[in-house]
């Protein structure tokens, strides 16, 4: 038990969200993308920049956008100049960490209205390929000599999970099929594939066995934003605020090879912290809709188990039974997820928070889940399979 009870002063609500297109090689600059998302979130809340007290920026490695001091650079795009602005960064977990950090600002009483923006532009700066950025994140002694890349460490994790839980590639491919089909309802989606089948996934190019091309989300450019407000302000702004009920984040050891790869402990701990704050003791029953992080298809299953939305090794069964479909009993990644909408890293995590916001307001349009939803969850994961970030929201 590492998480403790959290004392906070103010209830905090999300009152607006915005999202750009997710695409490879968008022509807008990172600053422009940040502003497009920020403006949309402000418009949704009926606010302007003048109303915003503080700005929180989230972005993954500087090397993607090719700009060191990316926080300062993006803050300018997002409207953070002459305001208290800060950037947070926990690798792929950043997108959900942005509203967590924005929550501190409001819950502490320091700010009343906060703009939280996440941006990533992966197509231009990293040469010869985006993956090359990840050559500089490893332990210099043990891992560097193996010339690791992200795909092969996840292949190891996927393989161990498959072995320990007796999961077949066919079961895992179902996640990719579901999410790429779900994405067809999303106006930002990069990879809507309405007719994709399990067979297509199983026949796609082998990158690092057992990972194949359609097991992975694409590299993308894009930005997302949300506006957070104190209770008093939120009630003035909207009749339908979505409350942040719980937040959690934890870090596990960088020496990922020393861990049990079949189960994401970093997610469990982060979820436990968020659940305690939200008063959730049976997530499977109390969470109505969830957006777990799905840069790879097996990660959706892995994370569902870490979040307690399925028992250990049970997520593939729920998936096979259709429970996780948009019209199922526990819709998982109704947005289309990273597999379908795309993966501009930090923006992808915040996209999930935006999706839960829209789902809980009943504003998800073609993507609206069938059952009535009152409590939702978004989760992201990053660094060397070690950082977990969780947010629980409710109406």
């Amino acid at each position, binding site marked *: 038990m590492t998480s403790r009870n959290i004392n906070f002063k103010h209830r905090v609500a999300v009152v607006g969200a915005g999202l750009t297109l997710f695409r490879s090689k968008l022509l807008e600059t990172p600053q422009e993308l940040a502003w497009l998302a920020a403006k949309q979130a402000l418009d949704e809340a009926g606010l302007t920049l003048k109303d915003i007290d503080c700005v929180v920026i989230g972005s993954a490695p500087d090397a993607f956008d090719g700009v060191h001091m990316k926080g300062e650079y993006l803050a300018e795009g997002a409207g953070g100049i002459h305001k208290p602005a800060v950037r947070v960064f926990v690798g792929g977990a950043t997108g959900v960490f942005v509203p967590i950090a924005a929550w501190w600002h409001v819950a502490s009483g320091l700010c009343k209205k906060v703009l939280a923006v996440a941006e990533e532009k992966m197509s231009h700066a990293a040469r010869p390929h985006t993956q090359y950025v990840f050559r500089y994140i490893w*332990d210099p002694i043990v891992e560097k*000599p193996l*010339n690791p*890349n992200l795909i092969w460490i996840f292949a*190891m994790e996927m393989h161990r999970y498959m072995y320990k839980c007796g999961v077949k590639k066919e079961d895992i491919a179902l996640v990719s099929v579901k999410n790429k089909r779900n994405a067809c309802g999303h106006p930002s989606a990069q990879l809507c594939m309405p007719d994709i089948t399990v067979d297509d996934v199983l026949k796609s190019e082998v990158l690092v*066995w057992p*990972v194949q091309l359609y097991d992975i989300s694409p590299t993308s450019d894009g930005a997302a934003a949300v506006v957070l407000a104190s209770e008093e302000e939120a009630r003035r702004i909207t009749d339908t605020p979505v409350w942040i009920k719980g937040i959690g984040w934890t870090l596990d050891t960088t020496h990922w090879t020393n861990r049990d790869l079949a189960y994401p402990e970093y997610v469990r701990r982060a979820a436990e912290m968020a659940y305690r704050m939200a008063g959730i003791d049976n997530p499977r029953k109390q969470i109505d809709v969830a957006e777990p992080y799905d840069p790879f298809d097996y990660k959706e299953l892995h994370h569902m188990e870490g979040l307690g939305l399925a028992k250990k090794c049970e997520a593939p069964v729920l998936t096979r039974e259709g429970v996780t479909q948009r019209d199922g009993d526990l819709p998982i990644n109704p947005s289309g997820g990273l597999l379908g909408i795309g993966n501009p890293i930090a923006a992808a995590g915040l996209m999930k928070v935006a999706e839960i916001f829209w789902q809980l307001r009943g504003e998800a349009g073609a993507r609206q889940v069938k059952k009535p939803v009152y409590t939702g969850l978004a989760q992201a994961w990053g660094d060397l399979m070690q950082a977990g970030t969780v947010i629980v929201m409710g109406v």
Partner: protein
Amino acid sequence: MSSELFAALKTGRLIGSRCKNCGRTHFPPARRCARCGGEMQLEEIPKRGVVLTFSEVYVSSPAFTPPYVVAIAQFGDFKVPGMAADKVEIGDEVEWEVADRHGNLWYFFRTVKHY
């Protein structure tokens, strides 16, 4: 404790560390336990182990020629990542071996053959 690790490799040994407080093992050897913060002591890693997981790399950077196999194997209480000399399956028995690679001493895994 990488200097100790490199010194061990020179004499054909592979070492990790074990927490004096909680018993958690660590590879590469560390000064401080990742679980409890306790002090650690060096320990020889047993020669023979079992493959926990592996990946077969088909797409890589120019430093290596695909396909090649990378694995994590369990040697006694130690989990060690490394390059495998041959194809492996989860559960296969392997031994680590020290060899010269690009002018540096490093280790790799070799499958134990049962005749």
